[in-house]
C-alpha cells in the first residue's frame, strides 16, 4: 500500500470507528425517531384516511414499521 493509501484508509478507519463508538447516537437515535414518527402519524391520521393512491394507509405503513 502506498503512503497516500495508508493516509486515506487511516482516515476512513477513524471515521467508521468513531461512528460505531457512539452507536446510541448515530444508529439508535435515528431508528427510534423513525419508529415514533410512523407510529404517531399512523395512530393520529390512520383512522381518518381511508385510502391513499388506491391503497389503504394501514397497509402502506405497517411494512415500514416492521422494517424499523
Amino acid at each position, binding site marked *: 500500500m502506498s503512503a497516500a493509501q495508508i493516509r486515506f*484508509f487511516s482516515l476512513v478507519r477513524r471515521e467508521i*470507528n468513531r461512528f460505531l463508538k457512539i452507536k446510541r447516537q448515530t444508529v439508535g437515535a435515528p431508528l427510534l425517531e423513525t419508529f415514533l414518527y410512523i407510529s404517531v402519524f399512523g395512530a393520529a391520521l390512520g383512522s381518518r384516511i381511508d385510502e391513499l393512491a388506491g391503497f389503504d394507509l394501514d397497509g402502506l405503513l405497517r411494512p415500514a414499521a416492521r422494517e424499523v
Partner: protein
Amino acid sequence: MALQVVDLVKRYPTGTEALRGVSLEIEAGEFFGLLGPNGAGKSTLIHCATGLARPTSGTIRVFGHDAIEHYEQARLAVGLAAQELNLDWFLTVEETLDYHAGYFGMPRRERRERARELLDTFSLTGKKDDRTRTLSGGMKRRLVLARALMHRPRLLILDEPTAGVDVELRLELWRYVQQINGEGTTVLLTTHYLEEAEQLCDRVAFINEGRIVALGTSAELAAEYGVASLEDAYLELVGRKELSRARGEILP
C-alpha cells in the same frame, strides 16, 4: 538547516499583525527556545511552520522544503505537540497513536512497533485501551507528546509543553526531550518558564509584538542586558525590570 524563516509577516483579517517581519534560523540538531509574553506571536509562528496558518508574506522552510509550496514534505518532517490538549475524546490511547502515524503514511507493522515503544517510554502501556478523556492531565500531556513523536519527526515543536504540569512530570519531560535531542532531533520549544529555557536550550530568541528582539545563548543574552539571569534579561526586554527578583524588592 532545520527551520529557516525569512521576513515572515502574518496579518489576520481582523487587522491584527501577529508577525511583523520575523527572520530566524535554526540549525539541525539544535535545541532552540522561543520566549515571549502572551500574544507575542509564538504560536502564530509555529502555526505558519506547520501549515495551520498561511503567512501574509515571507518564506518559511523546513529542512529545505517550503512550508507553503511543498507543504506535505515540510509537514512530514515536523512533529507538533500543541499547547492545548487536542486529543480525540472518543479514541483510545493506542488508537490515537495508530491513526496519527497512519495520517503520516506509516505502514501498519511499523506503527504498532512504534506505538508500543512510545507507550512504554511514556508509561502509558497500562492505559492503552482506555479512552483519552479518562486520562489524567499529566497522562494527556504525555500522550500529546508521544503522538507528536510517532512518525519520527526531524523537527519537534513543543508549544508550552509544561504549562500546568506537576514538577515530577516536567522533569520527566525535560529528560526525555533532551534525550531525543541528543539522538539528533531538532527541538523548538516555546515556554513561559525561563528556567526551563535556560537549562535546556542551546539558543534562545525573544519575540515581542511580532518581532524577534533578541537572539543568542542565555549567557549571551544576560550579558547583553548586563543582568544575572535569563529572567532578568526578559524583564529588561519587556520593560518590567522593576519586577526583577534579583533586586529583592518584591520578596518578603
